[in-house]
């Protein structure tokens, strides 16, 4: 039964034929439906951005009244080296985590996509860390790395201070981060591999391409969009990493070795100094860095992610 054949079309149907009236007819309902989430987004996502800009221009230690100080916080934070140090630590952390996490995720996905019996089991197992609270996992790993009754030293028969050695702390923290995210990355590469048309792989096989050249010349290029997605979300998440690092090495780690930007912002605002103005400056710098990183990644991949076989 089609709409025009009905004997008495209702008002709504007639309005459907004329977009202009429909436009006005839907508006009250639409705004009523949107009201709660719009209010929430304005109050808890948009307003905070305005507030953080204003806070970055003010001095406040949670006790005395808030005072406008112009660019004082900006000058202070951008010159005193703490932010620079944290950004450096964060970049090092990201550089340790992202390449390994991506490569391992891809490798595991290639193994799982061989279609071996039991692949499902491994796929499920690898996702387990993703489901757990990063904070709780951080505490578990803190025990594993602990020099007193920790599992790793017991396993290796060593006596290493994994988390209090300034040279070891950051790689160790990065390793935990990789551990908890490889499975998640694997899932995306598996989805990407499943999306490669079998005809393409068959054609390559007919042309005599081996596993090696099939991977480099066909699978990897066709995984472009997946790799892009995994890299963008991975870099953004790693730049903001907090829970696990906080659990493993509170207060920025030995000699500030794991003082990533998110920890620095937290410590600056809520521990010791209660310097909310300075913390706001850092938060805005982080925001800017993330926007720039995202745009750079987009530009880098713009010429490469062109394969759309869907």
């Amino acid at each position, binding site marked *: 039964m089609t709409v025009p054949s009905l004997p008495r079309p209702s008002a709504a149907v007639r309005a459907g034929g004329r977009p202009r009236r429909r436009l006005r007819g839907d508006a009250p309902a639409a705004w009523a439906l949107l009201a709660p989430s719009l209010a929430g987004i304005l109050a808890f996502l948009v307003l905070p951005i305005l507030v953080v800009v204003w806070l970055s221009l003010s001095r406040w230690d949670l006790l005395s009244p808030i005072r406008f100080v112009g660019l004082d916080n900006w000058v202070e934070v951008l010159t005193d080296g703490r932010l620079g140090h944290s950004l450096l630590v964060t970049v090092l952390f990201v550089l340790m985590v992202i390449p390994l996490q991506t490569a391992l995720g891809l490798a595991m996905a290639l193994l799982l996509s061989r279609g071996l019996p039991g692949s499902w089991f*491994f796929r499920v197992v690898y996702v387990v860390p*993703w489901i757990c609270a990063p904070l709780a*996992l951080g505490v578990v790993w803190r025990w594993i790395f602990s020099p007193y009754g920790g599992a790793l030293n*017991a396993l290796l028969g060593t006596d290493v201070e994994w988390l209090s050695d300034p040279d070891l702390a950051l790689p160790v923290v990065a390793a935990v981060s990789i551990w908890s995210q490889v499975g998640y990355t694997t899932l995306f590469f598996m989805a990407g591999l499943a999306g490669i048309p079998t005809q393409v792989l068959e054609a390559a096989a007919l042309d005599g391409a081996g596993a090696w050249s099939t991977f480099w010349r066909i699978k990897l290029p066709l995984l472009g969009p997946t790799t892009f997605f995994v890299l963008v979300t991975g870099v953004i998440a790693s730049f903001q990493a907090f829970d696990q690092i906080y659990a493993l090495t509170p207060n920025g780690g030995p000699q500030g070795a794991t003082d990533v930007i998110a920890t620095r912002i937290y410590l600056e605002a809520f521990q010791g100094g209660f310097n909310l103005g300075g913390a706001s400056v850092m938060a805005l710098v982080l925001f800017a860095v993330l926007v720039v990183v995202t745009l750079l990644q987009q530009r880098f991949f713009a010429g490469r992610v062109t394969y759309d076989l869907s």
Partner: protein
Amino acid sequence: MTSPEQLPTPRGRRRPAGIAEPLRAAGQRRRRLGDAGAYLVLLVGAVLTLGPFVLSFMTAFKTPQQFASESSLAPPDPVTGENFARLFAEGGFVSPVVVTAQVVLVVVVGQLVFSIMAAFAFARLRFRGRDALFWLFLATLMVPQVVTVIPLYTMFTAVDARNTFWALVLPFVFGSPYAIFLLREYFRGIPADLIDAARIDGAGTWRILWLIVVPLSRPIIATLVIITVVTHWNNFMWPLIITTGPTWQTITVATAALQSQYNANWTLVMAATTVAMAPLLVVFALFQRHIVSSISLTGFR
């Protein structure tokens, strides 16, 4: 047995069977060797993934005496529940579990209802400024949590609502741009004829949404429920900042606090991490198939 890699080799297709046979045998041998290697790597990966969980659960069920005297790799002997008893009695872990469950419940219901409403408006209704508003919603996805926690803290301080239940839920309960985005995509796929037919039958927007669109969207809603439960059960930074003292501590904040209070008391601390992780692990075990496929579907992190 149906993997694309097990297609007949090109040589096997072109050459007469007599020549292809030994070649195929060699290929199969190589493949079998490759499969064995793959299993080995996958197995190492599984052991590395599950090892920390197994070790921490073992520790949670050990007596402090055994933990102090034996290797930390030894299995619990005797198996004891005393760490959990102590955790709930002395460690005050009942309240964090209850608070977290309440927060998760309120956030899941609120976020889903309000997100569904907004997503329907974006997907199915026409109104002036729709696209611009949708872009505003999408743009807020770019805002990192670290950036908003400080101003949110200031705002809740200004209205004297720090360390309350409302402070824990309000920033999240009105819907999430991410959920709205995913739901909108899904709603757009629902045939327009169905909705038009309901309109003809006299159903209003509200009834169409809850009686037709929502039942048809069960898969994506189930996915969002899982994602939201996981996110808010595990949420740490905001509860850490906005709560003080034990009253409104969530499970993650309580675990972190316990860890710093009972520093070397690892059997007790591992009982806490077990309590923090167990509920989601059970949910995961029950719905793993659905959860695993929804992660790659939605790109949720």
